[in-house]
């Protein structure tokens, strides 16, 4: 029973993602115990599972990493927690930026595999990366405009490309609907969630963020994997059309 209390305690550290084991002796001790004691490890796994969390990794370096199941009370929801009272298109763009953020940090399968590399990124760079990609797609495809009454048929890349990059500072509303501020928000969010750290502030690019292995693990073993399965399903159902492979 003592084991269970400790296991639950270790899982509870997952809700304080910015805390590192190195800063908290008790946390560190629990992580070591997870590593060495297989029955304790099993108990931790079970507790997490019961709470609707998938245990992804526990290490003495970054602590416990969990991924919330979709129906879990711990899961973030874009429409409730991140971008409430935004239009459907804007919510989609926010989601897109998060995916692009993952893609910027780990574009290839090999990048997901590396474990010690820290990626430096800033909002402008992220926006530029996504825009460049949209432009490349635009060159390759010859899309027509969507019908007047069905704007949601517009390909996502066009919706992003036509958004303003930065808003005029005089218009506050526009400032938050332009893409660079939206990218900034995504990066700040990762920091709040302990998935990234703020790095130095560069004169040209503003705040630089450092994305490390915590986010990599979350994307590789949980979020990206699930999305990959979903996309495969959509391809199989013919909802998404595969492009000719290169």
């Amino acid at each position, binding site marked *: 029973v003592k084991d269970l209390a400790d296991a639950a305690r270790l899982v509870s550290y997952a809700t304080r993602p910015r805390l590192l084991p190195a800063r908290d002796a008790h946390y560190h001790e629990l992580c070591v115990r997870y590593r060495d004691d297989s029955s304790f490890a099993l108990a931790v796994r079970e507790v997490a599972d019961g709470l609707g969390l998938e245990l992804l990794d526990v290490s003495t370096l970054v602590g416990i990493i969990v991924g919330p199941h979709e129906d879990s009370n*711990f899961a*973030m929801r874009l429409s409730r927690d*991140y971008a409430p009272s935004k239009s459907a298109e804007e919510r989609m763009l926010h*989601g897109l930026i998060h995916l692009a953020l993952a*893609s910027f940090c780990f574009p290839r399968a090999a*990048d997901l595999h590396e474990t010690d590399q820290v990626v430096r990124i800033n909002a402008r760079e992220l926006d530029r990366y996504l825009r460049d*990609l949209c432009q490349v*797609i635009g060159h390759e495809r010859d899309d027509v405009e969507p019908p007047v009454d069905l704007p949601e048929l517009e390909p*996502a890349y066009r919706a992003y490309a036509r958004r303003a990059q930065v808003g005029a500072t005089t218009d506050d509303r526009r400032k938050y609907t332009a893409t660079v501020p939206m990218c900034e928000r995504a990066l700040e969010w990762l920091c709040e969630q302990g998935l990234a750290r703020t790095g130095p502030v560069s004169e040209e690019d503003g705040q630089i963020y450092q994305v490390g292995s915590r986010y990599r693990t979350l994307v590789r073993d949980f979020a990206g994997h699930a999305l990959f399965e*979903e996309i495969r399903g959509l391809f199989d159902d013919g909802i998404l059309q595969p492009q000719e492979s290169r």
Partner: protein
Amino acid sequence: VTGTLFDLWPDDDPAAFEGFVDLPLRPALELDDAGRRRRSKTLATLAPLVLLEAHKGLRSLEEYDLQELALAAIELIAVGMTLEGGATTADVVQALKPALVAQHPEAGEEEHRRVASVVIETLIEAHKASYADYADKDYVRRRYEVTLVREIEGPDGIHLRASIEAINAIIGALDTDIESAQHAAEEALRYALEKGKLDAAVQAARQATLRSIQYGEQIRTLLSATRRNVAAVDWEETAPRVIADALDHLAARLETERTIIRSLAEQREEAGDENELDLAKIVTLQRLLETCIARHALLENKLLDAHKVFLDEQERQSFAPVGASYLYDVEQELLRPLLEASYGTVADLLERFFARAGGIRTPTLPRLSTLTPGLLRAPFERSELGAELVETEFAPEAELEHFPAPVWAAVDALLESVSDPTRLSELLTRARRNSEQEARLLRLRCLYAFGPELGRPDQAQSRPLLFADDDGTPLDDPVFAGADLLVFWAVRSAVPLADAVALETA
């Protein structure tokens, strides 16, 4: 990722655009311009179609794209024309049918027929238009009548023929790829050179240079994507095409810019020494154009290296150790398919991705012990409007005194009894014999008489007015203080002031 090309065209470096911005360019309008008159007429030719579409609500035909139907009808009529005959109305109605059915399938054949006739009737009608003409320095609106389709007598009934204007304007001039920036720049330049407007030619050159910068930007995009992930760029088709386009553009530009420079040199010789201003301008333009050429050439050289970047990156990335094969490629297998799909489809997927990758939410559980005080807490006052303004308090206004009619009558009688100038103090004493109220009214009447607004219309009559004047004597009264006015009746003279002065001196 910073590519070499990006260094070439730093978009936030003001120096890169030096000389472009400061170029003295004052657009001057040439009033009498045959080209603009032609364009006005062309536009007038199109007006019936635009109006037909704009006013379709009046005919309750919102489901149809009448403008498009009219274009289709003209096309049909123009194609169906023979040397002396042409298509009949029935032919055109029949031919329009597929378009009508596609636009509004639920409507019956009868309605489709009606819509088709509305379109054809509009084309046959004569439309009045006008255009501006400044010939001989006078502005004249000239009448211009447009008929798009004419009916002619054929061997077997009435045939339709498209008018020359309709064919030229609608079939010829409208079929342009108006989104081609390249085409626009070329047109502008051709026009400018034709008109001998060198300023405008240089403006066009400037546009073309900006196009070069855009191409540079496109190539930079491709190369930077290649450096990140060589598989992200289609090096079989897309990239070579963009590079080829850019090279074509540059080749054409280098030639054009040289032509303008030659043309400028000729103008310079013609200008001679007497027109120094023009000469200075030409020299500036020449220098600017040489910069343009240098920029184009620079980009051209860099373009030729693009393939090498591809080969190097191909080598570097393809032969790098491949990661675990069960893993997916985030950019190619997750981001790209979603970017290309319609955003309605991907919104849900992205929401779920965010739910998984966005971190952990710490759910807040409401507890009765904190909820109750929370609900009872007074709402937070926002101070974003700044400090509250103190409202100025005014002293209560003194209530106006109302005098009853008998008091008025008494005061009137008292004042009317005045024949010679009388002191206010004496009148007050007399009024007080009746009441204090009468004294107050009397004081007001005399004050009014002290400053009667001369010149009011009702004073322009020759009836006596009450006047009061101050000769410096102070008033000695228990209630009121001030000057002891002299009160008297007088008639305003009709004699103007100047005459009055003249009379006095006489």
